């Protein structure tokens, strides 16, 4: 049947489903309309007001309403090209044309006491052809909705089908006009005065029956599932009442006749009102959608602005970070080169003071110094800020390294390290580390002659007078050769130790009671990163 099936969302009217509440309202409306009509029928023949303008008003109203409805149904047909829609459009165009002819042929509708076209008999024939033809076409449309009969047109045939339907309708109407208004000696007289002949009444009752049949077809075939057909059903009830009242009234200007015109107008207006209601709903939802769209647009623009600002800020941060990174990298390279120069200098100083030192010992000393530099960088890498670190664990590790990289471990000399916690930077840690390396190496190499209980103690403490005190003590023989250190520098009176002490702005003193004790006092400000 295809009524309740929403066809890809392109059926804005016909495909409108109905809610149970709507179906109930439509049902009650049909029943009430039919009941009201039945209640009026006994009084239909009573004389009613004689208003000649009734026909003009009725005919013109039906003409306009049916024309509009026919046009809208045709629009609907172009959206969903099915045969029922085309037949329905044809039915309303036909009704519009017949309403026009009815007014033109009705005596007194335009000019006093005479029809504009045809003769006094024409209006009767035209009326009968109208009221029988319209429900027949509607019935055909509704029956065509039944699934085995339902025909859909191919898109490319829609234009031709539309044109054909309109031209066909016009040709039929033209033929009817000619047949009823020209010479109608061959047509039986069906008006006696302004009253239908008996078979004319039969024709009107047939129109009542056809309207009822169309209504039943709507109920049976569409099962109230489409709002358009629901209203078409109401229109059929009104059309049935239109004819029943007219035939019961019997003559013009009876109660039945007058009310039949009203019902006819109602019948033709119902689908138009339905369409207008749909338009209003679409209009409302469109306006709502536009409003939402505008709000969404504004939100979107706002978000774009915010996002752009975020991106620009993040870009600026990145550029800043990049610039900082470049500065840092340059700084690192600079320090690497400086350290290489330091290593080169250490080698030069060592070479200048070589004397009779065995080459493997010289090379081992060099490797210890390079390793100390490496250890400082390792501490930096492991630190959180990559710039400073605690000197205590560094000295502990350095002591441990020296205990097995110098002769210490081999010869059973214990190297103990004790240090206060102190956060330092590269510029302090390198000379300090090298100083400890030199002093410990020298102590291990030169301080001991016997084999028992040998120990080297390294201690870094922060004194109350805000000076740092580095002390390296051994319990050896208090050897000759200056201190536990060997002055080098080949003639400059400076060795690595002295150079490092100067580097740290330190003061060094040596005592040799119960071994050698070297004490170096460094201003605390040197250690501050």
């Amino acid at each position: 049947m295809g009524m309740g099936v929403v066809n890809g969302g392109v059926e804005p009217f016909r495909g409108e489903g109905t809610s149970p509440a709507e179906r109930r309202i439509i049902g009650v409306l049909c029943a009430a309309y039919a009941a009201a009509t039945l209640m009026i029928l006994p009084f239909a023949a009573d004389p009613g007001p004689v208003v000649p303008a009734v026909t003009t008003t009725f005919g013109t109203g039906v003409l306009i309403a049916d024309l509009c409805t026919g046009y809208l149904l045709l629009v609907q047909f172009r959206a969903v090209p099915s045969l029922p829609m085309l037949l329905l459009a044809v039915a309303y165009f036909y009704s519009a044309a017949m309403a026009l002819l009815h007014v033109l042929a009705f005596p007194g509708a335009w000019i006093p006491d005479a029809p504009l076209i045809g003769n006094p008999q024409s209006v009767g024939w035209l009326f009968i052809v109208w009221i029988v033809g319209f429900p027949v076409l509607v019935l055909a449309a509704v029956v065509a909705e039944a699934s085995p009969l339902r025909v859909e047109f191919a898109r490319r045939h829609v234009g031709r089908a539309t044109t054909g339907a309109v031209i066909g309708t016009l040709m039929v109407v033209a033929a009817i006009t000619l047949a009823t208004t020209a010479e109608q000696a061959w047509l039986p007289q069906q008006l006696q005065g302004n009253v239908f002949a008996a078979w004319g009444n039969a024709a009107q009752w047939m129109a009542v029956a056809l309207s009822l049949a169309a209504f039943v077809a709507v109920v049976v075939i569409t099962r109230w599932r489409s709002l358009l057909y629901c209203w078409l059903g109401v229109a059929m009830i009104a059309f049935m009442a239109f004819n029943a009242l007219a035939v019961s009234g019997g003559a013009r200007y009876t109660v039945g006749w007058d009310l039949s015109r009203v019902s006819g107008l109602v019948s033709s207006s119902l689908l138009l009102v339905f369409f207008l209601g749909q338009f209003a709903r679409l209009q409302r939802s469109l306006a709502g959608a536009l409003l939402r769209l505008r709000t969404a647009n504004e939100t979107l623009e706002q978000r774009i602005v915010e996002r752009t600002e975020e991106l620009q800020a993040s870009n600026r941060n990145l550029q800043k970070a990049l610039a900082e990174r470049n500065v840092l990298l340059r700084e690192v390279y600079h320090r690497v080169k400086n350290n290489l120069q330091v290593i080169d200098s250490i080698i030069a100083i060592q070479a200048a003071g070589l004397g009779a030192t065995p080459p493997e010992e010289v090379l081992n000393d060099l490797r210890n110094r390079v390793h100390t530099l490496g250890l400082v960088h390792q501490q930096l890498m492991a630190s959180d800020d990559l710039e400073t670190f605690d000197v205590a664990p560094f000295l502990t590790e350095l002591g441990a390294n020296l205990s097995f990289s110098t002769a210490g471990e081999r010869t059973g000399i214990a190297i103990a390290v004790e240090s206060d916690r102190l956060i330092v930077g590269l510029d302090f840690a390198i000379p300090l580390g090298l100083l400890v390396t030199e002093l410990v190496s020298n102590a291990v190499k030169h301080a001991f002659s016997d084999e028992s209980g040998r120990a080297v103690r390294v201690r870094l403490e922060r004194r109350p007078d805000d000076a740092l005190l580095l002390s390296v003590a051994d319990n050896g023989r208090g050897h000759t050769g200056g201190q536990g250190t060997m002055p080098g520098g080949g003639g400059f009176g400076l060795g690595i130790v002295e150079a490092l002490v100067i580097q740290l702005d330190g003061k060094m003193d040596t005592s040799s009671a119960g071994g050698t004790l070297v004490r170096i006092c460094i201003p605390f400000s040197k250690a501050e990163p």
Partner: protein
Amino acid sequence: MNHAVTCVLVVDDEQLIALGLSIALRDMGFQVCGTAATAARAVELAREHRPSLVLMDVRLKGSSDGVDAALEIHRTTGTPIIFITGSREPETLARIHLDHPADILFKPVLPAHLEKAIARLKETGAI
């Protein structure tokens, strides 16, 4: 050596580097009239010893750098100055060129580099 070089002043805030350079100079037969770690000390030593050549590091301890010291020494004694720097950055080089450097050497510097630079200066008669 047939040259009129009386002595060389070494300026570097790394004592080990200053010492290493001093040893290199001594091995080339030059006398080192002192080492300085700050710009002020460098100017002071230059006034005192009137060296025929200064080896100048750019980064020094304290607020003034090697270029400040070099400009001052140039002004007072006119001694040619060889800059020794770890940085090849345009900013540093531009700053060095504020003075009229006799030469620029980049760390790490080997004794051979130093010897060549001094030989060039001798050829041009700068020292």
